[in-house]
């Protein structure tokens, strides 16, 4: 297997405050340095709660945000400047809200043609041919091309979003909560379509979601994000069954499961640490039942073989 995507010490900080003349009052680290590799043909799931930095990470990966530090390598070639037009041919994005990711005043054909025209400079007949190919693979009828986005249901609109991402002929797709705006019956349709497309075009996926069960069902490996850092990384079938990081365990215990009695898995205040004033040690220490003095002083590193966890006192796993 070859590496499709390699991140080295990738991080992003945003300046806080500061206006027209005032200097900024400091920075917030939205993503702490992350190093990850994604193999060709793999689906890497990324889970985390709101504010954990998963969307910032995703936007850096497609060149919509410039990383503060670190590099992104795609198929062995480094992409160092944030230019979506360069990234666009190699890595594409499927958005969370299918309707708002389509311009309401353009027809589907205009939307589909944009990447073909701008990224590949195709002429009309080439474009038509390519669009029919893609529409056939995502099971959309070509008569849809002359319609406007508001005429479609969420599931259809998301297929169009996927078709647009495929049109750029990128080998890697970032799927940012692609099904969380959809109803369950439609969600399964879209997930299965994604699985078929992956096989057909030998794609590599980064699947971002807050829904643990969905991520587990589609991923080969899963990375758990907390407060801008990867706290656990491992094979999908093990990570929630036998979590090693206490935060992963908290997530797994919180997911509603039929037949499990209803108990709050955590009695404490569950607010994230203040990003302007991050704790010196492990970000999870304040919520962690296993936290020791060391956890509050030192930041743990991601360690392990099959399952990696950033924790000084990991759970046993099995």
């Amino acid at each position, binding site marked *: 297997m070859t590496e499709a995507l390699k991140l080295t010490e990738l991080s992003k900080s945003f300046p806080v405050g500061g206006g*027209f003349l005032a200097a900024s009052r400091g920075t917030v680290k939205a993503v702490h340095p992350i190093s990850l590799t994604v193999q060709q043909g793999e689906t890497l799931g990324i889970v985390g*709660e*709101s504010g954990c930095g998963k969307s910032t990470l995703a936007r850096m990966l497609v060149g*919509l945000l410039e990383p503060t530090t670190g590099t992104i390598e795609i198929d062995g070639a480094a992409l160092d400047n944030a230019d*979506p*037009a360069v990234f*666009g041919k190699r890595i594409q*994005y499927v*958005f969370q*809200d299918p309707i*708002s*990711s389509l*311009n*309401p*005043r*353009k027809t589907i054909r205009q939307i589909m043609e*944009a*990447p073909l025209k*701008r*990224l590949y400079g195709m002429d009309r007949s080439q474009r038509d041919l390519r669009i029919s190919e893609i529409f056939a693979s995502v099971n959309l009828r070509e008569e849809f091309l002359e319609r406007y986005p508001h005429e479609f*249901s*969420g*599931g259809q609109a998301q297929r169009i*979003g996927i078709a*647009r991402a495929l049109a*750029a002929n990128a080998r890697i797709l970032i799927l940012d909560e692609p099904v969380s705006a959809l*109803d*369950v*019956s*439609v969600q*399964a*349709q879209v*997930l*299965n379509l994604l699985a078929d497309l992956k096989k057909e075009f030998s794609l590599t996926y980064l699947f971002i979601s807050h829904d*643990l*069960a*969905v991520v*587990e*069902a*589609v991923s*080969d490996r899963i990375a758990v994000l907390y407060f801008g850092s990867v706290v656990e990384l491992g094979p999908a*079938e093990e990570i929630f*069954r036998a979590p090693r990081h206490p935060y992963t365990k908290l*997530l*797994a*215990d*919180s*997911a*509603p*499961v*039929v*037949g499990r*009695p*209803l*108990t*709050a*898995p*955590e009695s404490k205040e*569950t*607010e994230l640490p203040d990003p302007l004033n991050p704790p010196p040690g492990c970000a999870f220490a304040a919520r962690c039942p296993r936290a020791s003095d060391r956890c509050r002083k030192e930041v743990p590193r991601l360690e392990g073989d099959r399952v990696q966890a950033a924790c000084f006192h990991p759970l046993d796993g099995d």
Partner: protein
Amino acid sequence: MMAFLKLLARNRLALAGGIVLSFVVLLALITPLLPLAEPNVTNTAARFQKLFTEGALLGTDHLGRDLLSRLMWGTRLSLAVGFAAAVVAATLGAAIGIVAGFYGGRTDNLIMRGVDMLMAFPYILLALAIVAALGPGLFNALIAVAAVNVPFFARNIRGITVGIAHKEFVDAARLAGLSNTRIILTEILPNVIPVIVIAMSTTIGWMILETAGLSFLGLGSQPPQADLGSMLGEARSALITNPHTSVVPGIMILIIVMSINLLGDGVRDALDPRLKSGALSRPMASTMVRRKDPVPQAEGKGLLEVQELQTQFHVKDRVYRAVGGVSLHVKPGECLGVIGESGSGKSVTALSVMGLVASPPGVITGGAVRYDGEDLIGAPYRKLREMRGRNVAYIFQDPLATLHPLYKVGDQLIEAIRAHRPISKSEGQARAIELLKAVRIPNAEKRITDYPHEMSGGMRQRVGIAMALANDPDIIIADEPTTALDVTVQAQILSLLDDLRRSRGLAIVFITHDFGVVGQLCDRVAVMYAGRIVEEGPTQSVLETPTHPYTARLMACVPELGEGKRRLEAIPGLPPVVDKLPAGCAFADRCDRVQADCRQGEIDLEREGARAVRCIHPVTPLKEAAE
């Protein structure tokens, strides 16, 4: 476009304005073709002729010039200048606004502070200063009026652009390789044009007045050229002796500006997306009721009893049967789950209970909602208002949208209590703290002075629950209260609700799309599809042996944690639109067990013990499942 014109025509005043304005514009356009006297030829012998004199229908002015002719030519000029100024101001203002809003940051700051400075001058002074610098003349007056109005457009358009520039489709366009210029032209501009049109239509009348004002002061059109402002200015000295010379242009200005403003308001309303649904007025205080069939008799099944409820939306000539005969009941201390996909009618059912469905277009057309045996549908608004919050309280999905952003959460809680009983401020304060403690908000004493935006999503939803508890209701209707929350927070909110109903004997109707949540919290569950209940029963029993094919397949769609990577079951197709429901079973088109008789006629909700199903070919026979 046709729909837009239809909407516009529905507004009578706008229609009248439009007709008058088109007539004036038409006259102005054909002025050169009309057999009018030369407007600038003086004839001092025939000065100040009265109205309706021969050869001068509207009389003559102080130089004996024909007033009708001057009025027509003057109107033509005033309209042209006003319109040109509006176009110039809109174009420049929109360009500035789009650039500022799109690039943001320093560019935005620099541009908008410049615009602010322009706005800091009183507009007439600014216009005077510009004309003073450029010299008098109609063209310079046009420049002055346009310049004065640029900030209005710039600010307006900038605000809209900021919203659009952060939409996902703009990111998508970037990834499709579009340059910034192209994004502005093809993605942003088409979306702000309606706003520009609205802003123009409401300001063009104002600009005609401003141009007339400058001409009146002698800074606009120069003699002998006539425009409406200069005609007024010249007639000023003869105001008492020969009033008609001022009244004639004055009336024309009035007609033009009134008709433009009426039409402009109409255009604004017709382009406003909220009004496209056909609701041209504000919703009524409670849902409209139009019941034809007799009201069902009370059955005394629970504290809240919904019987054969039908709620429809009447939009133009379409009827959407959002709720098509739903019966539910819930007892004190019981939690009933209502599960369904979007468009299944679950939220409309919930809102119908207290008459909260927006009317128009919502109408309750049948059934009954009984609280303790008493029918609430059609109850007077006073009665409903008395009961809302006190007997039946709601928790909604998005606490950020339901809490007022400008009031402290404590004050909002106190207001909720005071809506039902008069208590002093300090009593209210104590009660608010008590409520926040009841929903386990740490540091409640400090938190009551927080604004909603200072709290996290989970904390806000706790405030939402505290507000629902404020008047000790017996029933809480929770509409997807945890959908917007993270899993760890959701778990806490669910266990809080569970505790509350056990300790206070609350009856909860919990609306959700999540089987996991239903499985953990609810005693009984009702599954809705296309506005009707298709299956009902004790939660455990339904989840273990679903009988309706929809329930069974919907459950199979939901991945469960701990099963690893796999292919999911999917239900092909989409739910039917509720304005075109098929005969027979609404699920038939998506069902793999469908047979010919499924599509023939009504299918009843069949009951057996605690279980009920609306299917003639169930997955498991109802009898078996009920055991």
